[in-house]
């Protein structure tokens, strides 16, 4: 698995993959129902609504109510998919999720678009960078952040077949597509993208592509990276992580999230217990975002491919001593 074999074929937003996946899941299983809080097309749920109007519910701008109704639908054996922006899917309704969905172990799929900085111009009020942390703290919650259109579609289909609460996180902008069409998505199974010996880069969501770019850049300088896509943040694929790290003994974690509470913290936690090695974090460092274009923002907040490459160089220095 050579990093240079990974190329992109066009780009589309991950939320479009969700929209397609939901449409197909609806066709496969009549128990699948959809709900939105006045953000139908932002979530790309218009396809599902058109095909299955009787199984779709417009809740209006009332996210807390939407989570409660979804939990109730789940008690009736339905498989509800709620759709709104990531901020209003989590922070806005944390206690509703906690009590009615997570604690009650309801089969609700909380589907969240416009996560992270790449939401862009709407700015910090909408750019949630704490959602992974909030959701992964909830006992029994599955947390998934796929990396491209194809994978988001596959993940949407997979969570429809899984019983239990799931947080599915995706984004707004068009983003390179580089994973196979019609892939089978395995919840909780990390995906290795390249083999390498010097450093392991774990990444999730949009930053998987960013990490691939970084690894290509590093390869030209003779640094060999193992890039691993952690699409499922919870449950974490401990085995795959420990396997790779026991070989490279140097780690970078990249995510479009706060450093506090994110994937980096999860992995560092695992490594602290089982295999202490130097770790560098590519994540937002305890600040809010702001308005701007997606790539400009990733650059300003230290989440570009150069930042991932620099983190790898730093961790290699630390590995030496």
């Amino acid at each position: 698995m050579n990093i240079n074999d990974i190329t992109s074929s066009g780009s589309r937003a991950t939320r479009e993959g969700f929209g397609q996946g939901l449409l197909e899941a609806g066709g496969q299983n009549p128990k699948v129902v959809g709900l939105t809080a006045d953000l139908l097309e932002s979530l790309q749920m218009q396809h599902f609504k058109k095909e299955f109007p009787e199984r779709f519910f417009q809740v209006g701008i009332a996210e807390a109510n939407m989570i409660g109704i979804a939990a109730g639908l789940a008690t009736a054996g339905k498989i509800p998919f709620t759709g709104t922006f990531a901020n209003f899917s989590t922070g806005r309704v944390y206690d509703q999720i906690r009590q009615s969905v997570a604690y009650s172990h309801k089969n609700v799929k909380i589907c969240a678009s416009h996560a992270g900085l790449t939401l862009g111009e709407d700015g910090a009020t909408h750019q949630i960078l704490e959602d992974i942390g909030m959701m992964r703290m909830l006992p029994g919650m599955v947390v998934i952040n796929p990396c491209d259109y194809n994978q988001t579609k596959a993940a949407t289909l997979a969570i429809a077949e899984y019983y239990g609460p799931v947080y599915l996180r995706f984004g707004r902008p068009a983003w390179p597509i580089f994973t196979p069409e019609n892939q089978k998505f395995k919840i909780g199974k990390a995906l290795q993208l390249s083999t390498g010996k010097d450093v392991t880069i774990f990444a999730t969501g949009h930053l998987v592509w960013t990490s691939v770019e970084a690894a290509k850049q590093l390869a030209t300088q003779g640094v060999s990276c193992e890039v691993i896509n952690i699409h499922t943040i919870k449950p974490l694929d401990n085995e795959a992580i420990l396997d790779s790290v026991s070989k490279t003994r140097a780690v970078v974690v990249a995510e479009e999230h706060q450093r506090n509470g994110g994937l980096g913290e999860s992995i560092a936690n695992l490594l602290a217990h089982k295999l202490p090695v130097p770790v560098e974090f590519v994540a937002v460092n305890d600040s809010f975002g702001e308005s701007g274009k997606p790539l400009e923002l990733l650059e300003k907040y230290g989440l570009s491919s150069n930042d991932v490459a620099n983190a790898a160089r730093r961790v290699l220095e630390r590995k030496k001593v």
Partner: protein
Amino acid sequence: MAEFDQLKEQAAQVRRDIVRLVYNCQSGHPGGSLGCVEYFVALYGKIMKHKAKPFKMDGKGQDLFFLSNGHISPVWYSVLARNGYFDVQELNTFRKLNSRLQGHPATHEGLPGIRIASGSLGQGMSAAIGAALGKRLDGDKRRVFCLCGDGELQEGQCWEAMMFAAHHKVDNLIVTVDWNGQQIDGSNDDVISLGNLPAKWKAFGWDVLVLEQGNNLEAVAAMLQRARRRTGKGKPVVILMKTEMGHGVDFMAGTHKWHGKAPNQEQYESAMNQLPVTSLGDF
């Protein structure tokens, strides 16, 4: 009437500003902004006692304004700039990197005129109530104004705030609802009907005023004055203000489709041709 002539000229300029703001950054919310021009121009130009410089967070001795439906930041930023809160040229930075003019209003970058962040809907009325209570505790006789969207009223927190304000007789507060009948996914009636809105506010214990002509500057100003006269009488006051979303630009008017979309070049030119040039000049 000379005063209204000046305010009307400002309103015309604010409409141009709104279209230019969203066109320049190819994002933002023109529809609700255009519908609320008369409200903002009247409020800052005629109704509120307020001081642009130096801007004071606590606003002691001044009337205060809170925007709950933060997505209509273009109209607010334009009116703040045109009232001297910051340089009109700064409007060029709207929604761009390193700007104080965030997509949704924020205090984080220190933009004068903003007292609390908004953008996540349903929170502004609560904040306005808190500020009104603060004035009451301080013996400050000035009033607190707040604008909400109609779709926004679907958020439960709005109704919690309404109950509180009536229960605690927060009568130094004037809330206005931008009753344009539209939101993102369609009309309010298509999404989640608000039902009999005046009756609901009345049932929640508010003094309710309905304004049919929310895009008529004199009518808006007169209604705001009337609302002010009804404060201090034991009840919070609400103006249900009928407006036209996208007012002033024919292809944006009366539809939810321009809630949060920027015009392309052709649409921009068409809009600017419809909006009269003013002596104030574009930013």
